[in-house]
């Protein structure tokens, strides 16, 4: 090369080098040497190849070998290594050099873009990527983000049409992500298609989880039996490279595809773009999915709070910073946009409960730990709400005390509790009347016995007075017995009236032994009729309990009737019913009724006490349920247990009362 020409070539802002047909370099300009930092001696021959990025070199050489027979000019993108060891992307152009006869004497390579251009392009790409990631961070809609992503990619890869398809995992179908420059006729045909390998390269890439390159749609045979090639060709698409977009966990979220209107394979630059932007797309899609899941769970939470009338709150004890859930605003009837403070929330607390509220707050502020209070709220319209507050103390990273808690509106429960108490008392009456029916025979017996004595004694007395001389002493004795039996009959009637009257609720000191004896006396006919032998083991010096005597007697009677019922089918062994009173280990008065009947199924232990649960064909199943509620109202406990031997034991215990 003439030196003058060489000087010019050295001056232009381009790297130029020539190679012979065998690929060996015989000329490199000063720009090339300056950029790579190589000397002429090092670069001559095959030496120039060491300035091409090792990863890209095979593609460059392949390309060159393929270009040579065509005798045409071409270009390939590859990274060059700079003198400082950094790599930069360049468009390397290659043109044949003719000799005087017009035959190809060698090839001239040149890189016309200055490094500045290349840097600008890199910066533009980085800026584009940053813009997209910023949109992700700001929570912009996914479709908008993916559209912007396609625009950035298309600017960096001229001639490419970028498409992102998303996969709906529930239906295993594609839906449109973004494809701003693809024909809409094409994209709408793919939208909603199943994720299968027959639906073009995107379906194949997604279902096989691998990149699919179609360099010429017209000649590719993989979709011969499918509609896709005709669809693509009808929209002037000739090549497409589709890559699966993977989540962090490795699941296929969608596909990222570059379409061209010419046949072709992706260059190294294209592959780098694809790698970079499938990753960005993955971040955008995962973030959108996470946000959707978060929104859904927030919606669930809000709905759950509304349904359960429960709100949640956070309170920083040091700064008094308060955060309320929407439901908490609703319960307190504050506008949700009102900034919440402890002082503001206190304005809703019922004046009578302010001391309770203040004490709880002060105690919590001093680090009192978890707390639970049930203050009343006074609403602006004068109505009262009952709320139940539970708070848990935590410390954040800086050690600041924070309470996380829940507040439930229990007004309705309080009101229904009152209604329930009323219903329960009526139910108890029904149960008593039901027992009355069961005891009719026993009552008749208890009344008929003294009546029989009265009648017989009176007859005897009349006969004695009619004697001559009248037996006055004998008649006096029979009259005395008549009076005694009449009192006995009157007692029975009085006890009955007490036991079955609807009145109750008189709290008094009750001698449980005495009360038990009365029940047994009243019902003795029933046990006799049922063939049940009642044994009593009543503790001496049993402390009194405080309660409703009649109700407690009702429970004893109920348990005895159940025990008798359980033994009704027992033959071959005595039907023993043992009723025992004692002071248990917890210093409570315990009454237990032990039978030798059919026993109870341990699986049904809990159900036994449910209202209307009955194993008896004729039973209403309210006896035990009512008994348990009576005992519960006496702060006691009623339970059942199978015996070691035959039968079961029903027992209750009550706190000792003040005598």
């Amino acid at each position, binding site marked *: 090369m003439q030196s003058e020409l060489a000087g010019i070539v050295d001056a232009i802002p381009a790297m130029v080098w020539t190679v012979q047909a065998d690929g060996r370099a015989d000329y490199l300009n000063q720009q090339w040497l300056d950029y790579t930092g190589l000397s002429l001696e090092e670069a001559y021959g095959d030496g120039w190849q060491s300035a091409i990025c090792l990863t890209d070199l095979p593609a460059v050489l392949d390309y060159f070998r393929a270009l040579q027979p065509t005798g045409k000019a071409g270009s390939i993108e590859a990274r060059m290594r700079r003198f400082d060891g950094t790599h930069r992307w360049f468009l390397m152009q290659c043109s044949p050099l003719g000799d005087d006869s017009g035959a190809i004497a060698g090839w001239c390579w040149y890189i016309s873009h200055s490094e500045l251009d290349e840097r600008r392009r890199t910066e533009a790409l980085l800026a584009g990527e940053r813009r997209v990631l910023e949109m992700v961070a700001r929570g912009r809609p996914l479709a908008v983000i993916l559209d912007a992503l396609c625009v950035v990619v298309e600017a960096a890869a001229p001639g490419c049409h970028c498409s992102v398809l998303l996969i709906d995992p529930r239906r295993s179908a594609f839906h449109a992500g973004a494809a701003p420059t693809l024909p809409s006729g094409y994209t709408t045909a793919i939208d909603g298609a199943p994720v299968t390998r027959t639906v073009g390269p995107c379906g194949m890439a997604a279902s096989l989880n691998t990149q699919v390159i179609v360099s010429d749609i017209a000649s590719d045979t993989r979709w011969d039996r499918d509609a896709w090639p005709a669809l693509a060709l009808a929209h002037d698409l000739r090549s497409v490279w589709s890559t699966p977009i993977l989540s962090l966990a490795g699941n296929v979220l969608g596909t990222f595809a570059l379409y061209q209107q010419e046949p072709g394979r992706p260059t190294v630059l294209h592959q780098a773009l694809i790698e970079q932007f499938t990753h960005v797309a993955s971040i955008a899609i995962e973030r959108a999915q996470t946000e959707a899941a978060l929104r859904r769970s927030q919606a669930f939470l809000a709905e759950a709070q509304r349904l359960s009338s429960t709100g949640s709150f956070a309170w920083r004890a040091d700064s008094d910073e308060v955060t309320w859930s929407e439901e908490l605003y609703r319960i307190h009837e504050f506008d949700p946009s009102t900034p919440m403070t402890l002082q503001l929330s206190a304005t809703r607390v019922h004046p009578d409960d302010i001391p309770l509220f203040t004490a709880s707050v002060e105690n919590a502020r001093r680090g009192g730990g978890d707390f639970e209070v049930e203050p009343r709220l006074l609403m602006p319209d004068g109505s009262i709400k009952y709320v139940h507050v539970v708070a848990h103390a935590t410390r954040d990273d800086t050690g600041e005390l924070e309470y996380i808690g829940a507040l439930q509106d229990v007004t309705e429960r309080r009101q229904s509790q009152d209604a329930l108490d009323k219903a329960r008392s009526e139910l108890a009456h029904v149960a008593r009347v039901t027992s009355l029916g069961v005891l009719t*025979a026993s009552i*008749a*017996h*208890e009344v*008929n*016995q*003294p*009546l*029989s*004595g*009265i*009648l*017989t*004694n009176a*007859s*005897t007395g009349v*006969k*004695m007075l009619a*004697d001559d001389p009248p037996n006055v002493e*004998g008649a006096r004795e*029979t009259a005395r*017995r008549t009076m*005694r*039996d009449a009192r*006995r009959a009157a007692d029975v009637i009085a006890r009955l009236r007490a036991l079955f009257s609807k009145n109750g609720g008189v709290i008094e000191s009750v001698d449980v032994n005495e009360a038990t004896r009365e029940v047994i006396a009243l019902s003795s*006919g029933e*046990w*006799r*009729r049922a*063939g049940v*032998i009642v044994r009593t083991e009543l503790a001496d010096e049993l402390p009194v309990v405080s309660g409703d005597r009649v109700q407690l007697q009702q429970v004893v009677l109920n348990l005895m009737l159940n025990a008798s019922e359980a033994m009704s089918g027992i033959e071959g062994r*005595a039907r023993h019913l043992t009723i025992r009173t004692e002071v248990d280990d917890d210093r409570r008065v315990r009454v237990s009724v032990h039978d030798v009947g059919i026993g109870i199924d341990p699986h049904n232990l809990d159900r036994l006490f449910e209202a209307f649960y009955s194993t008896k064909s004729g039973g209403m199943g309210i006896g035990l349920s009512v008994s348990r509620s009576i005992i519960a109202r006496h702060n006691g406990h009623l339970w059942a247990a199978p015996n070691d031997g035959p039968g079961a034991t029903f027992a209750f215990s009550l706190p000792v009362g003040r005598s």
Partner: protein
Amino acid sequence: MADALLVTVVDDDESVRESLPDLLGQYGFATQAFASAEAFLASDCIDRTRCLILDIAMPRMTGPDLQRELTRRRHHIPIVFITAHADEIDRPKLLDSGAVDCLLKPFSEAALLDAVHAALGAR
């Protein structure tokens, strides 16, 4: 009253054991009272008893139980059952089994005497 006919009362109710013998005594019967079937079986009154006034419902051995036991021992004592339970009596069945009568407490003096006389006549 060595020749007086012995009427025995078996009832767990004390009031009956007090009043019934006194009334029967007014009509010239000798009487004995027992609080349970077992006590009667253990006594020496079985052979001398001409009429047994027997309560049906008693703990342990019931009236009908005693009736069966006496039959088993071949003591054919006429029995008048008494009971305060109106609804548990299968009266025809009791009469079929050899009982002379069955009285519901409270019963009248006349009903008692009729039943006792019927029992004595049945021998």
